């Protein structure tokens, strides 16, 4: 009842309520027979796998019986069922060891999200109009199978595409296999912040095309070039565990952390020393430090013989990288460079890390190789290593080229899974135009987002907690890790797991596809893939396959005994000379470097629909529910921009508006914006909120790998309005707070 009506007719309603007695609406619901019997009030703990980032942490789900409003057999009613109440880290899991980050914790809300797509739906209006109608699964699947059949029959099987965010585990296997036998090209993996550059660099330097693992618990000194390894980069939980140990886990031994970046990240905020370096020049700085080490013979040159050979001039002691020369290029003083070289080599166990923005320049690979060379030079105790893998399956990699291919030659039919390029790819890549040309798009999305709003048919996937989950850890552990979990709860809605749908489609398509995918359900496929691990030394020591399968489900996966995967001889390649980063936009017109960064709350934006994360104050700005742009206070003064003002950020590609946050942790010639807000259409919590910095990125790529150089755009700033227009919600200091609180001591 509405409030105003209440007051008007409160007396009347009192009488009505008296007549009505004690009946209330809920009691008129049908109650369905429970599908699963749990003891009420007692929590059951079930393992699962976290899917919100690629780290692949192990979960424990606290499941308790509750009463849910559901639709069963077309009728609405109440059912007693196991409900997931809380996610914790799985203490046995080698990656996260019982710990879990904010995003992982909040992923629970994906299960109960009020805007989940609860039934298969078919588009009725124009594309993007958001008009859908519910259809039943049989019809939906028949329709897709018919399309697949027609496509194959007409000899254009190659015109089927599958676009997904990079996955891990058997889902990759399943999708790839399906496409292969069907005759389609391999899946297109896309996410905005991909790691192709670093994987390539690591392949060249260390022989592993993978993200590195850092045993920070053994480090005495860490120098990190741009990687927000405590916040969002690589395997943040595993790295945070190591960080805690590196700080206070060893009595009397406290490591130093030096962070080099032009915008202070969460990791930078924790560093003992924070050094601003000119964007894209991190590699030069690393080589400047290496120069001092080599020149003063602080470490044997041979220590980095392999990785050094990839850098031109290494053998000669990097003559071009004298501290003074480097100071000119990077803005970091020669004295600091020299001091860092001494500190790095004098500390017991040092490590150099790179990740994030330094790789997102046109010279990203050079930066990575340079830091890798420095790493080999100073890392005496193998703080950096690589997580062993069970097979030689390389991690799947986001590919801008493939996305380009999609735009260049739109396929006849597209499967869409957990990828949202309309939000996360710069418009300059013309994905929207490509999608418009594809006649038939099928999405497995659980939510309407910008991309799945374009779909012709949506076959909603189960939430992760309702599905069989598996993943392979690329990094974060000294063991090979295969995480596995059965569904923690029964499905709430009329959804079906994507793998099962794909297997079912395979059967309907028949022929080779059905033969290649003989499993009835995904768990059968998982079992077939995992059971061979029984004979390998690891966390499960049982006699039979059945026991292994059961134990893996209870434990939340299988992991090998610890074994460090050592660097292997590097791939031969001509040495690289220093390359300057290129930027889109002339410095005169666009005076500011623009850094879109992975949000602590929303990752690449795919978590913006979770209310817990929307209301999570950003730890550096304390902003909630908002978009903002970080500006140095001096720059703000110069441009007449005050805290909370509305600012237009314009690049050659377009402009966005966001509230200004004046932050001392950013260089005066740079502005930064978190990625995540600015969704046009992504549930009630994210739609129409803030601005999307990815939408003004220039389509520059890293020269060698072709991966998106997302830090290579330049912008200009202008104040366009006051705080009323900007609507910046800060947790700290109330409505008009300023971030420079000085705490009285």
């Amino acid at each position, binding site marked *: 009842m509405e409030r105003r009506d209440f007051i008007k007719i409160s007396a009347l309603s009192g009488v009505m309520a008296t007549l009505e007695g004690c009946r209330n609406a809920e009691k008129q619901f049908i109650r369905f027979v429970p599908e699963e019997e749990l003891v009420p009030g007692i929590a059951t703990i079930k393992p699962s796998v976290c899917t919100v980032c690629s780290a692949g942490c192990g979960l424990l789900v606290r499941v308790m019986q509750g009463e849910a409003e559901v639709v069963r057999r077309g009728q609405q009613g109440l059912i007693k069922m196991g409900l997931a109440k809380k996610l914790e880290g799985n203490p046995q899991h080698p990656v996260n060891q019982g710990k879990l980050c904010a995003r992982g914790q909040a992923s629970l809300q994906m299960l109960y999200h009020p805007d989940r797509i609860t039934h298969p739906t078919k588009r009725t209006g124009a594309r993007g109009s958001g008009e859908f109608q519910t259809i039943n699964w049989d019809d939906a699947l028949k329709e897709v199978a018919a399309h697949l059949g027609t496509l194959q029959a007409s000899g254009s099987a190659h015109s089927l595409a599958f676009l997904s965010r990079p996955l891990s585990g058997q889902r990759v296997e399943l999708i790839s296999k399906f496409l292969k036998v069907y005759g389609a090209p391999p899946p297109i993996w896309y996410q905005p912040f991909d790691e192709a550059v670093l994987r390539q660099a690591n392949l060249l330097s260390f022989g592993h095309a993978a993200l590195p693992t850092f045993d920070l618990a053994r480090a005495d000194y860490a120098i990190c070039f741009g990687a927000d390894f405590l916040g969002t980069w690589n395997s943040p939980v595993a790295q945070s565990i190591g960080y*805690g140990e590196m700080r206070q886990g060893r009595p009397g031994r406290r490591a130093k952390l030096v962070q080099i970046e032009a915008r202070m990240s969460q990791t930078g905020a924790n560093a003992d020393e924070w050094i601003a370096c000119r964007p894209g020049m991190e590699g030069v700085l690393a080589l400047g430090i290496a120069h001092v080490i080599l020149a003063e013979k602080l470490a044997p040159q041979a220590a980095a013989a392999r990785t050094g050979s990839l850098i031109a001039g290494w053998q000669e002691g990097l003559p071009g990288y004298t501290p003074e020369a480097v100071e000119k290029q990077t803005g970091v003083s020669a004295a600091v460079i020299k001091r860092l070289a001494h500190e790095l080599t004098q500390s017991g166990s040092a490590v150099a890390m790179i990740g994030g923005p330094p790789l997102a320049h046109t010279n990203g690979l050079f930066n990575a190789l340079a830091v890798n060379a420095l790493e080999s030079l100073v890392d005496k105790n193998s703080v950096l290593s690589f997580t062993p893998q069970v097979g030689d399956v390389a991690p799947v990699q986001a590919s801008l080229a493939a996305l380009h291919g999609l735009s260049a030659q739109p396929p006849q039919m597209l499967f869409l899974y957990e990828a949202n390029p309309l939000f996360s790819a710069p418009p300059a890549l013309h994905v929207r135009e490509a999608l418009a040309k594809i006649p038939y798009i099928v999405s497995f999305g659980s939510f309407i987002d910008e991309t799945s709003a374009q779909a012709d048919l949506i076959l909603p996937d189960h939430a992760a907690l309702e599905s069989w989950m598996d993943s392979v850890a690329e990094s974060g552990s000294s063991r090979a890790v295969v995480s596995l979990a059965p569904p923690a709860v029964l499905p709430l809605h009329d959804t079906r797991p994507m793998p099962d749908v794909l297997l079912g489609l395979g059967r309907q398509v028949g022929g080779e596809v059905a033969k290649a995918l003989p499993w009835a359900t995904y768990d059968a496929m998982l079992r077939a893939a995992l059971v061979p691990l029984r004979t390998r030394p690891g966390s499960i020591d049982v006699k039979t396959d059945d026991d292994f399968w059961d134990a893996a489900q209870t434990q939340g996966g299988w992991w090998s005994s610890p074994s460090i995967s050592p660097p292997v001889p590097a791939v031969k390649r001509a040495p690289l000379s220093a390359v300057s980063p290129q930027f889109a936009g002339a410095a005169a017109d666009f005076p500011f470097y623009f850094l879109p960064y992975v949000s602590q709350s929303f990752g690449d934006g795919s978590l913006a629909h979770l209310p817990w994360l929307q209301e999570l104050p950003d730890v*550096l700005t304390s902003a909630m529910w908002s978009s903002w742009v970080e500006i140095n206070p001096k720059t703000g003064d110069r441009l007449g921009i005050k805290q909370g003002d509305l600012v237009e950020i314009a690049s050659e590609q377009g402009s966005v508006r966001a509230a200004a946050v004046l932050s001392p942790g950013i260089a005066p010639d740079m502005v930064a914006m978190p990625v995540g807000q600015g969704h046009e259409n992504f549930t009630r919590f994210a739609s129409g909120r803030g601005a999307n910095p990815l939408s003004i990125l220039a389509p520059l790529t890293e020269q060698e790998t072709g991966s998106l150089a997302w830090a290579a755009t330049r912008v200009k700033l202008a104040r366009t309005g006051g705080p009323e227009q900007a609507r910046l919600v800060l947790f700290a200091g109330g409505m008009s707070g300023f971030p420079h609180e000085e705490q009285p001591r």
Partner: protein
Amino acid sequence: MAHKWGMVVDLDRCTGCEACVVACHAENNIPTAGEDQAARGRAKHWIRVERYWEGDFPNPRVRFQPVLCQQCDEAPCEPVCPTYASYHTPEGLNSQVYNRCIGTRFCANACPYNVRFFNFYNPEWDKPLQLQLNPDVSVRSVGIMEKCTFCVQRIKAAEIQAEAEKRELKDGEFTTACAQSCPSKALIFGDLNDSTSEVARLSSSNRGTKLLGELGTKPNVTYLERGTWDNASHG
């Protein structure tokens, strides 16, 4: 011996990742305020990570400081409550009895840490988000103060379990939601009266301070100061 629950916050370990904040929301049925209410200063975070800037570019420094209810032994919030809704339990917890609270909000004003929150409205969850609510914790209705309870539901569950098994509680047998999630182990919870517990050991660390200790509130949360890196000791 009776328990005395306490916590250690190691500022040198804390990375400001805010896993604790979401963990607390999930565990304790803390409603999401929404943008409008958050803009009015009514977002509820029983634990928050405060951030203090020191210095300017190019040498800015940041201090993170998780602040939750300090469970003071001499809590300013307790004597001011006219109905005993805010009182001290025998186990040293600074408890808020929801059903006894009439909502004077005096306790929140008296609290120097600003860790008490008021239900300005009845909380709301868009269905079916409410299915996540923890049945072990009350859903607080309008007009009531609430605050960090040190996850009293977990304390009670563990105590009942230990009693059923006729044994003493073990250190580390359970912990609060925030401490459980904390990746860098910056939050340590336990029994201060158990001299062998980790929290008791860390509380007596020479890095230990109390937040606003000069006010004499005698908090049961100890902050361990950030360390410094000394080049000389790493020769």
